[in-house]
């Protein structure tokens, strides 16, 4: 990020759009603000220029904000998404689409600046990831989400789980089984995707079937056959594939 942020604000309510535009324009971290009153118009803007983040209303006619956010995830280099809504209950769904933040209208200056701070961190991380040498298994500095929405077996709804409380994720077909301080949950995301999404938050793929939060690891125990076992805080033993042992040892000793 060489200068201030470029933001595209999208809301079908013209007055709400005016309000967020004024707030964004008067923030020191923002250089440029464009506005769109529909998801279709937003896509036109995105096809014609680069934006660091979308401030996106959830409820809009024709294409809703959440649908646009899902569409953006297919982009090679998507802008960060910060949701705006009058519906506080939409937060869970927002985290499902990896939104960077979720603001309830009307937005306070303090809350907006916090969201912009996250956008700046995200942009800096993405730029560093582009310039950093790859292939050594080093942790990406890109900022990731700090919360994930998992299937809640009680009641069938969604439950928010903070990444820092997750000990490890285990592959389960196209799903991942999440083991955290609050229990075990299913997440409808393959482990390979979680590996990318959570790389910046201290997770490492130690085995084909295991993605581990290294902050929860307490011991790396070598095995005679060249593999290893990672001992977690709760004494769970996670197998470490032979090809991952050296890189993992370097990370733990770094």
């Amino acid at each position, binding site marked *: 990020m060489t200068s201030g942020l470029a933001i595209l604000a999208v809301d079908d309510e013209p*007055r709400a759009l005016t*309000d967020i535009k004024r707030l964004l324009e008067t923030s020191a971290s923002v250089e440029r603000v464009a506005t769109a009153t529909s998801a279709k118009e937003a896509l036109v803007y995105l096809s014609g220029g680069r934006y660091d983040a979308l401030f996106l209303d959830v409820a809009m*006619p024709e294409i809703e904000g959440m649908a646009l956010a899902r569409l953006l995830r297919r982009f090679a280099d998507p802008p960060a998404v910060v949701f705006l809504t*009058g519906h506080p209950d939409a937060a869970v769904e927002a985290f499902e689409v990896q939104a960077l933040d979720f603001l309830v209208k009307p937005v306070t200056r303090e809350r907006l600046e916090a969201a912009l701070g996250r956008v700046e961190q995200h942009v800096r991380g993405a730029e560093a990831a582009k310039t950093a040498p790859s292939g050594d298994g080093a942790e990406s500095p890109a900022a990731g989400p700090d919360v994930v929405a998992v299937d809640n077996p009680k009641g069938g709804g969604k439950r928010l789980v903070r990444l820092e409380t997750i000990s490890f994720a285990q592959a389960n077909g196209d799903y991942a089984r999440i083991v955290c301080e609050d229990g075990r949950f299913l997440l409808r995301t393959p482990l390979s995707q979680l590996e990318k999404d959570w790389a910046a938050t201290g997770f490492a793929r130690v085995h084909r079937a295991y993605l581990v939060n290294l902050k929860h690891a307490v011991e790396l125990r070598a095995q005679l056959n060249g593999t290893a076992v990672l001992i977690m805080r709760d004494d769970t033993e996670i197998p470490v594939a032979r090809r991952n042992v050296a890189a993992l040892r370097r990370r733990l000793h770094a």
Partner: protein
Amino acid sequence: MDHRTPGQSPDVPTVSVHFVNNVLAAAASYIEEDPDTARDVLAELGSFLSHRLRGPRTVSPAEELDHVGVYLRLEQARFPGRIEVELPTVSELPSTPVGAGEIQAPLSEAVSRWMGAHTGQVRVALRAREDALDLQLDRPDAPGEAGERLRIPWGLAAAGRVA
């Protein structure tokens, strides 16, 4: 505290948090460029909430009609130039009391549904019948196009017929 007395409505339709937050966002947007409008929007929101947060009770037809008018003016503040409104006069309404919010709540649901599904202008017409109100939503720029119609029974909650 329970404000109910025998014969009063057992339920008060809930106020939409989404609506209140979006009205506040609209009010915030007017503060710098048009403070008088910002003040008016906040005053109308205060009136709206006062009508609905005073607990279950019946109100006069004039009070509920005024509440409907306040609600629609708040929607017009959110969406300037998009909403045309046609309301009956008090003398056209049934004379019996009605539950607070009993007419506004279904009207609000219909308007929200419409605004969430359509762009462009909408005409909101509420017409009095003997024991009900007919709500018609349509696009003034598309004559002949079928809009949305809803019959809102008058005074069901007030008469204790709605659980």
